[in-house]
């Protein structure tokens, strides 16, 4: 009977080898797949068992984890609801993390290397591991004014401290309530998601301040002006400003807004052309300066198609293809393929405000350990110097004129000089125009730079967006006790 016994022994060995191979496949080959499976609540439960750090604005927690009685120990709440949603994003069982909940996840969850020493200490002291806090640069007054200004429209506002690059406000509409997407009820989460993304309307999850770029229209004239001033033009240099301009090598006619006339003499000083936003003057000026000068200046301001992180990812801005002088003429008035993010527009205004020095925009001021000690702090950083201080002064003078007596009069603030530029960009024949405004105040000692974008607002930058910019700047100064 020993021969079959030996065969049985070998068969058993084979069966057990099968078991071991199968276990290897599960625990090694399929390990990541199984660990990351949406339905595997182990890793998730571990994450939810930990007190996630808060996102803080001016001492108030705008995203905070609170203990619960249910299966997952902590619930993510957003006390301000939709107000900060474009910045915080959500922390969802079903849809994952977005915006800062994603970009700063390591710190918030306590995984960040800068919290490493503390985690080791937690091991020995038996303290529950917790995440660190993320303190933002936002100013609540600015944020509220921006969101209030955008109520009922689709658009975005960005406000910067021109001297540091700190982002004071970042609004995007329509918004949503991140708490609804961060609950512990997957059904409720899905229902809310369907509700906010239903239909063809604008997607509330998109942060229009940074996630997308748009044709800037006449905002671009500031960059063309900068190129001209660098080339020896002065604000009072007289430039051609015909009523109707035929674009070179085409029969296409370029007109001014509402077919109006810029000047009875068909020419005017550069400052006046910007003040009334004369299309023919800037198209001709761009063609006279040439593609290289325009492109070079635009790229110097940051329209270089590069993405950046603030730490939220920011879409690139660009000048686009310029195939001909005709295209150059259209590009010079911010049409054709020119695209800017709202943040980029704010950065252009801030650069002029900051004597030609562009600061790197940032949203996170400090990172705090769970014991509130500072583990990291953002130092303001110079990004570029696209224009000289002298050109910046001349541009400030011209942009002040825009608000004082030109297309941007709706941005005027009592007792304070405001500099700015309006933009009204044609999108498509069948869609209303985009309405822009960018500016800063006070013109002589700028504290805040703002860009306002209203998508398909249908009006002009001057009547739709400039008032919102004024409200935002006023809110800022009132908040500062001014």
């Amino acid at each position: 009977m020993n021969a079959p016994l030996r065969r049985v022994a070998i068969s058993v060995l084979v069966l057990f080898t099968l078991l071991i191979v199968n276990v290897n496949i599960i625990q090694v080959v399929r390990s990541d797949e199984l660990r990351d499976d949406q339905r595997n609540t182990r890793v998730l439960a571990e994450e939810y068992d930990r007190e996630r750090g808060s996102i803080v604005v001016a001492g108030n927690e705008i995203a905070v984890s609170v203990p619960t009685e249910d299966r997952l120990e902590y619930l993510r709440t957003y006390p301000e609801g939709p107000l900060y949603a474009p910045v915080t994003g959500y922390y969802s069982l079903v849809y994952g993390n977005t915006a800062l909940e994603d970009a700063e996840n390591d710190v918030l969850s306590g995984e960040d290397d800068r919290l490493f020493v503390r985690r080791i200490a937690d091991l020995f002291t038996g303290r529950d591991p917790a995440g660190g806090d993320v303190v933002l640069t936002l100013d609540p007054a600015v944020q509220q004014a921006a969101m209030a200004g955008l109520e009922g429209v689709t658009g975005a506002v960005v406000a910067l401290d021109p001297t540091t690059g700190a982002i004071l406000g970042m609004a995007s509409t329509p918004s949503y309530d991140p708490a609804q997407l961060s609950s512990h009820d997957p059904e409720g989460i899905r229902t809310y998601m369907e509700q906010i993304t239903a239909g063809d309307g604008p997607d509330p999850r998109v942060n229009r301040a940074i996630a997308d770029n748009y044709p800037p229209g006449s905002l671009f004239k500031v960059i063309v002006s900068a190129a001209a001033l660098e080339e020896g033009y002065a604000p009072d240099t007289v430039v051609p400003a015909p009523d109707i301009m035929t674009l070179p090598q085409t029969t296409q006619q370029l007109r001014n807004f509402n077919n109006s006339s810029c000047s009875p003499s068909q020419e005017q000083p550069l400052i006046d052309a910007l003040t009334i936003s004369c299309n023919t003057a800037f198209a001709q000026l761009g063609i006279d300066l040439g593609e290289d000068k325009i492109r070079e200046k635009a790229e110097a301001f940051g329209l270089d198609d590069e993405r950046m992180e603030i730490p939220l990812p920011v879409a690139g801005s660009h000048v686009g293809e310029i195939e001909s002088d005709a295209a150059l003429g259209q590009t010079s008035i911010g049409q054709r393929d020119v695209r800017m993010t709202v943040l980029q527009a704010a950065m252009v205004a801030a650069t002029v405000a900051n004597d030609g020095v562009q600061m790197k925009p940032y949203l996170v001021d400090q990172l705090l350990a769970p014991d509130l000690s500072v583990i990291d702090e953002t130092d303001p950083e110079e990004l570029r110097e696209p224009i000289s201080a002298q050109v910046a002064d001349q541009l400030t003078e011209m942009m002040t004129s825009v608000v004082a007596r030109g297309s941007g009069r709706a941005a005027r603030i009592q007792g304070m000089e405001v500099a700015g530029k309006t933009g009204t960009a044609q999108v498509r024949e069948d869609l209303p125009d985009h309405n822009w405004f960018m500016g800063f105040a006070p013109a002589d000692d700028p504290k805040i730079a703002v860009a306002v974008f209203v998508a398909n607002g249908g009006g002009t930058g001057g009547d739709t967006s400039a008032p919102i910019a004024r409200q935002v700047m006023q809110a800022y100064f009132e908040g500062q006790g001014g």
Partner: protein
Amino acid sequence: MPGPLTDPRGTAAGATPTRRGTEAALLAFAVVITVVAQIMVDLTVTGSLRPEMAGFSVWITALWVVAHLVVRKWASYADPLLLPAVALLVGLGLTVIHRLDLAAEQVGSTVTREDAPVQLIWATLGVALFVGFLVAVRDHRSLARFAYTLALVGIVLLALPAVLPASMSEVNGAKIWIRVAGFSIQPGEFAKLCLIVFFAAYLEDKRDVLALASRKVAGLELPRGRDLGPVLLAWVLSILVLVFERDLGSSLLLFGIFVVMLYVATERASWLFIGLGLFAGGALIAYQIFAHVQARVDTWLSPSDYYDGAGYQVMQSLFGLGTGGLFGAGLGGGRPDQVPVAKSDFIASAVGEELGLFGLVAVIIVYLVLVERGLRTSLVVRDAFGKLLAAGLAFAIAWQVFVVLGGVTGLLPLTGLTTPFLAYGGSSLVANFVLVAMLVRISDAARRPVTPQAAPVRLGDAPTEVVTP
């Protein structure tokens, strides 16, 4: 594998070492691992040692000391690896069950009551029966005398749950229990032992007939029609278990054991083919007829698709294993309590989640050692009954481990079998202790020198007790 299966009697005759020292050292190792693992669980989950820890350590040590001393006295030539392998598995099982008890505190846990102390009682009872068996049964061949009685007992035990009202026998759809006065036992576990003893005795008796009388059909030696009786009977029995108790596991287990023992007894591969054919036919018919078998198979093929139903357990088990990865979450570091019935059917996934691939493979290897030592005992023992019995017992463990672990890891459809020695469950633990007592008894006979020479013993060196077979 020539190494481990070589005949130890090949060494100098009469000088066979008893290897009791090896056994003692390995048992000590198993006890240390058990106690250290228990301490790790307590420290990781609760942060402090439980007050009962000292008592537990003493208790578990005492269990193995007693078992070892009894083996030393009444089965002194027994295989030295059998008992330590069991001790390691039981200790690890107690640890994982205790760990799952603690998880009852955690949110989202499926654990509802404390089972480790009860399991310790069962283990103690198991050791008591182990000791009792070794003391009472000095020669395994005496079991053969009760073969037909045991067969009757086995069939009654097996059939009892089927005839009892569902309220007394049904848990989670399987009618395999006897529940009386708060106690529930799975008689199938004991029936398994009775039937293996019967198979061994019966096959020893009939093996010549079954092996020799045959005719050749298409190159294959086929047994005569009337000799097919026993295998058909076993097959029918398995089918009955499947039909009336909805117990796929026991059905598969009994039939597999019988076919393998038949093969060993007759040395005829044709029995294996006949067995496989009958199994395949039975499985096919069962799949066609029984919804619960169909559901099991469908779930096995794509557990993910049945996540909200029958596939939930296996998927949770796979999630646990996958999350555990190579090294595991550490004892007390994972969430094995998220797998339903982690303490019994799915204890292996708890081991895999917290001790990782290394821990789970180590456990599989310990089982392999246990089984191969049992098979080696079968090879070495001289009498045919002992050979068949040891082979049946060893293969029973192997087959059960394969079917259970295969089910838990998605290799095979899920069956209702328990993981021997590891899983929570009194009947299974106690029955398996008796099983290993039988193996120990046979291995003692196997390794004992053939003719204990009256070697010249100087009076001064004479042992205080002279062991006689």
